[in-house]
């Protein structure tokens, strides 16, 4: 349900940390997005290929996360945990969270079944010697180990939990963080889209569903689209009331919408997507006419792109600029909604929109796609869409740090 009244004092995003195939940190992210750097390649991390002569899985893998943890902790943390600590460290410092008492800081980690690749490798490595499985496996296989790891390294003492909504998990984490701050439960809440560390088993499942693209090019919203490509990603956004913000405010969270549409599997549902967007707009006290930029879910799957275009048409967003971050960094699954929200806020701040890579023959020429090169654009109100298998639809409306008069 939308809020009955627009929030008189919208919350703000005051710290961002990002990790993707473009590198670690916002500088690498910003440069790679605006340049439209191509980073897709055959996946090379152990446990990511079938190794039986079948076609390789393509996607994007990130450089090793920076070593922030003490070494005895570092060796117990998987890739998802180390990436989470890296983005949290970046966002924490920027937001100046040391100023806020630990009991007033919360953490919502978006994603479920996050560390599947490491479980896949453990099963392979210990199948014949299960008696010697390291005891730590009994707690690190849980997604909530990322919550525990983060709260053991940073003074977060309000709450820390996960939220799952498939590929909308990262956006759902932002919704949960906003609700936690708005309700007064905490003064600052970190929404962290965790790295979904997929195994060859998961990738084969996506391939069998017909959702995964083949080859090194992902073409969201293009007639040549053939499925999504996986991309390792992780991002953290710090949400606070304006009075608790640090020195950098990226933007205001004006409204959120999060609904389920009754789909069980991967099938998209435009009705649910439209409803989520309308809820977010109503909460923001805005109409689609006020939206001047849309960051699509835009995965590159034929059915997903078609349903989303129908949604954009029904909402009447033909006037807004539209781009697809997944064309550059791939599909971060659990992290997608968070890192793409980070992309929205960074583009808004820079007054520059990144290109949609490989968008040569748009499915619908009537939309104002950002193609070719980065384009200057003053964004006042942005709509971020994020959808997940199992019928989850999330929409987020962001505004500039200060309300602008038209």
């Amino acid at each position: 349900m939308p809020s009955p009244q627009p929030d008189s004092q919208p919350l703000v995003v005051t710290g961002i940390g990002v990790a993707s195939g473009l590198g670690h940190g916002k500088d690498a992210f910003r440069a790679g997005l605006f340049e439209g750097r191509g980073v897709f390649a055959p996946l090379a991390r152990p446990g990511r290929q079938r190794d039986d002569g079948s076609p390789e899985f393509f996607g994007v893998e990130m450089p090793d996360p920076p070593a922030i943890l003490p070494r005895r902790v570092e060796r117990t943390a998987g890739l998802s945990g180390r990436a989470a600590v890296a983005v949290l460290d970046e966002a924490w410092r920027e937001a100046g969270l040391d100023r806020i008492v630990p009991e007033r800081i919360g953490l919502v980690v978006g994603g479920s079944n996050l560390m599947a690749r490491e479980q896949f490798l453990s099963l392979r490595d210990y199948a014949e010697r299960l008696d010697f499985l390291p005891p730590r496996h009994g707690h690190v296989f849980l997604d909530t180990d990322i919550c525990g790891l983060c709260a053991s390294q940073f003074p977060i003492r309000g709450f820390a939990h996960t939220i799952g909504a498939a590929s909308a998990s990262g956006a759902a984490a932002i919704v949960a963080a906003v609700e936690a701050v708005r309700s007064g439960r905490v003064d600052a809440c970190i929404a962290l889209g965790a790295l979904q560390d997929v195994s060859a088993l998961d990738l084969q499942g996506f391939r069998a569903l017909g959702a995964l693209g083949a080859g090194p090019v992902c073409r969201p919203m293009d007639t040549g689209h053939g499925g999504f490509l996986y991309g390792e990603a992780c991002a953290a956004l710090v949400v606070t009331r304006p009075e608790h913000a640090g020195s950098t405010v990226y933007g205001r969270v004006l409204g959120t919408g999060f609904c389920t549409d009754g789909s069980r599997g991967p099938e998209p549902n435009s009705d649910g997507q439209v409803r989520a967007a309308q809820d977010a707009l109503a909460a923001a006290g805005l109409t689609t006419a006020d939206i001047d930029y849309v960051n699509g879910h835009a995965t590159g799957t034929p059915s997903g792109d078609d349903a989303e275009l129908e949604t954009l048409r029904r909402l009447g967003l033909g006037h807004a600029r539209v781009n697809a971050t997944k064309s550059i960094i791939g599909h971060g699954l659990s992290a997608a909604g968070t890192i793409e929200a980070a992309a929205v806020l960074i583009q808004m701040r820079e007054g520059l929109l990144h290109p949609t890579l490989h968008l040569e023959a748009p499915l619908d020429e009537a939309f104002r796609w950002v193609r070719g090169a980065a384009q200057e654009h003053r964004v006042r109100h942005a709509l971020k869409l994020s959808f997940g298998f199992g019928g989850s639809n999330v929409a987020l409306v962001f505004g500039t740090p200060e309300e602008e008069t038209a």
Partner: protein
Amino acid sequence: MDSDRIAEIIIAEIRSTVPELEAQPITRADSMTDLGVDSIERSEIILATLEAIGLKVPMVQLHGPRNIGELADLLHAKSAA
């Protein structure tokens, strides 16, 4: 394999589990608790040692030793049994 060799394996596993102890002298007389090894790390170290010496015994049978030397003696006795 004698008890001293088992103690060497335990010490090597301690250093790999807690890299912060890499440069610290560790002898049979030291206890893992005094070295700051926590309980999960201790279990990991003992399991890795058991695998290295090819011994399968329930962890509950390995309570009691007060230092690395006593643990090595106990593992030596179990492997000789």
